[in-house]
């Protein structure tokens, strides 16, 4: 099953470290185009989601899973979720093929490796953005609004919470993503995230970028500096 959405070239360029440039040399353009085609056709995206009631108190966010309560402590996430009483937890991947494309490219060309890497990163984001749009419409029909996606490791939300995501969503079994000892996900083009559900449109502390400590110096930031 191919990716199902188009990978925006602009995003690939951003992940490659181009700033404020939308046109590149024809040679590079061809290589990027090929990488995008390959990643789009060889991906096999999968997603698992579950909605939970939550409660935000100070910097503590409590996720209620039946009889169990999981507490996430994070100032930035609490800001993102202000006024929310529910959240969608999700995990998604574009599958293992992209990792192999990157490894293959690494053998012959470091430039191609970085292009495939960027195309893969843009692919999982494009897939999630598309999913997010659909979700937004579904909730809008119920008069609810979604907050920007927020992932373990963003801002001050500890990466350790990956383990909670994996357990709650049974990620390994559902979509074939595993967690390494150092809390990295394989296949690498995978994302875990939480989307707050609120009754208002407020979008404070929006993107992961603005919450990041390297926001000002990062070569890949989404925002112009």
């Amino acid at each position: 099953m191919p990716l199902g959405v188009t990978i925006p070239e602009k995003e690939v360029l951003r992940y490659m470290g181009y700033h404020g440039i939308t046109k590149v040399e024809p040679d590079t353009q061809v290589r990027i185009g090929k990488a995008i085609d390959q990643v789009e056709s060889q991906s096999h995206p999968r997603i698992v989601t579950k909605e939970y009631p939550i409660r935000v108190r100070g910097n503590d966010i409590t996720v209620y899973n039946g009889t169990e309560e999981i507490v996430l402590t994070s100032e930035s996430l609490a800001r993102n979720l202000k006024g929310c009483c529910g959240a969608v937890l999700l995990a998604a991947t574009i599958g293992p093929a992209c990792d192999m494309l990157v490894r293959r490219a690494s053998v012959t060309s470091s430039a191609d490796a970085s292009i495939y890497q960027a195309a893969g990163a843009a692919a999982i984001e494009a897939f999630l953005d598309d999913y997010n749009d659909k979700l937004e419409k579904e909730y809008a029909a119920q008069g609810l609004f979604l907050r920007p996606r927020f992932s373990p490791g963003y801002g001050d939300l500890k990466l350790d919470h990956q383990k909670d995501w994996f357990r709650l969503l049974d990620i390994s079994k559902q979509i074939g993503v595993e967690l390494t000892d150092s809390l990295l996900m394989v296949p690498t083009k995978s994302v875990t995230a939480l989307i707050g559900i609120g009754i208002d449109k407020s979008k404070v502390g929006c993107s992961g970028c603005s919450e990041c400590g390297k926001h000002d110096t990062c070569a890949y930031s989404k925002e112009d500096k």
Partner: protein
Amino acid sequence: MGLRERLGKEWLFCDGGTGSILQGLGLKGGELPETWNLTRPDDIKALNKSYFDAGSNIVNTNTFGANRFKFDNVSEIVTAAVKICQQARKEAGREDDAYVAIDVGPTGKLLEPMGDLPFNVAVDVFAEIIKAGYEAGGDLVLIETMSDSYEAKAAVVAAKEVCDLPIIVTMVYDETGKLLTGGGVEGTVAMLEGLKVDAVGINCGFGPTQMLPIAERLVKCCSLPIVVNPNAGLPRTENGVTVYDVDPDDFASVMEQIAKLGVHVMGGCCGTTPDHISKMINTVKAVPFTAPTVKNETYVTSFADCVKIGKKPVIIGERINPTGKKKLQQALRDHNTDYLLTEALKQEEAGAHILDVNVGLPEIDEPSMMEDVVLKIQSVTNLPLQIDTTNIEALERGMRIYNGKPMINSVNGKEENIKAVMPLVAKYGGVLVALPLDEGGIPETSDGRIAIAKRIYEEADRYGIPRKDIVIDGLAMTVSSDPNSAIATLDTVRRVRDEFDGHSILGVSNISFGLPARELVNSHFLTMAMQNGLSCAIINPCNGPMMASYRSFNALMNLDPNLQEFITAFKDYVAGSATVASTKSSGAASGAVLTLGEAIERGVVGRAAEAMKEALDSGRDSLEIIDSELIPSLDRVGKGFEAGTIFLPQLLMSADAAKAAFAVVKEAMADKPRNTKGQVIMATVKGDIHDIGKNIVKVMLENYGYDVIDLGKDVPPEVIVDCAIENNIKVVGLSALMTTTVASMEETIKLMREKKPDTKIVVGGAVMTPEYADQIGADAYAKDAMATVRYCDSVFEGSV
């Protein structure tokens, strides 16, 4: 009666779900169900008993996740589970016809090379569980819910090494019949049959209706008893509790349809209850039982690919074999696996279906090289491999680590050789190339070769290796020393097909050894051999005339539907240029007039290498070319990058071009000592599997004249420090991408300070900052590859 005597001869039934039942009894989210074996044994016993009472013949112990990653008392938990299940069976009065299955689920980790769990560690993890279960008296090993065929192989190997119990393996496929790791039904079955398990099947993932088409595919390709254990439909959450949508009556009626397809063992998985199982048993028992039938297809598989050996000949790429190849020999001595990987990718692109892997050189440690190379090639290609060695230890290491069912090259008719090779094939599975020669040498006639082939088939029978998995080598030998040799070889190939209904293979190019214009003889001989029934051709797929023969043969013999392969390969063919082979354009044409410097600045790889060759051919000194053209142009790009006018991709393309130019120099000076600025270690620290950044730095350092020892990714501190001591290294570059792995960076630095304080450490990676670098005690922070080069220059030039 033992389970082995009953499997495939009568209906047998597994148990159903446990998770939702235990939740109903109060198992909390986050609580590990296996702990109940010790804390609430009566509840587990009641659960087991309810399935024995429902009529299940095979009931799982409560050990699905009882591995060392979750428990430090695995043996205690497993032993208790087996005892509980035995007691339940006794209380249910089923001791004479029901079995206690040691239940083995996935580890929750992904194996190398995709993940971080080494194959042999996975085998240990499974062996610990199975050994405890076996010693406690379990009757069989049930390996289930596997979504990675490689992990399933690790569990099967473990089971075979600690006990002789029957082994059942059930995998999780998606609706399209794919595993989460990409493998398909047919390839997975071929691998498991090769491993000689007792039954295979499918469980979990979805309900019986969606499982029907997968069961159909299993019945078509599988010679073993088939197990089908679906969920009770799809889960949904009601008031925080997971419920499933297929009730016992509906479950039973769909299972009846699946039973009629000709499967042999049935049960349930998530959401099914004793009620589902007992209704299913009542319904299915009335369906006539069909025993499994032997299928005659021969498959060689990788984790994702499945190559059928049959009517259409298969191309086996011969390029990864050091015999007569100086560059490959040097690459093996230098442990330059990238060179081997490049050869693998080239052959794949040229149209190979399987790759031969031979790494035999007298001066290297062949077993560990084989293991390493097999793992690495499988990380970049889906093509199945042919493990080619005469070293039995290398053969076993290669077969063990291999992900799938490989080809094995080879066994011969010598008694000693059969005794060494066949037990390995019986253990790990594989399609075995058999050379019809023996203690008496190579028979000159096909009669002699066929006689030995017959004996090898009979030996295979004795070892339980199916005849379909034997491929007889026709033994191509040069016509220049024996004018009858081609005839004898072609006769042998034809007779293997006609007399044994068997498969054959040839190392085609041997036929022309010592002759001029070898590709002419080889390509015609290939056509003749295929016409005589050749199944596998070991050739160089990058050779135009050979592939032209192959594709033409398929087109003419109706083995190329719609002539698609032929047309794709030759649509741009120019008459008279029979050497057109590769479908890849080099891109060199576009830069045909560029100078070396321009080619590097613009990142035109092909032209850079060509220009360097031209310069060397014109008699210029290599060092002079490097200093006056290569380095200055690379520097211009580097400075542009530092100034922000040139972006990373351009820098990398230039680096690739420079690397290609250097490769030309290196080859030209193969026998002369190289001038380097010094040795530098590069490594991605333990726990981190990202290596693109590290690889970029490596390429840049090499281009700037450094000799880089690349220790790879996920490298433990001791390895880095030991290597630094051994080679008296001045600078070590460490990379880490995640905050979680910076800790192991710090650990590495600490150990280095303690054991080899004079080595400088430069760090980089996504989360690194100058402050962070300082905090963990690094000597320097490098924000990118160029900064690393500059830092190394400063150290080696003595300014730091």
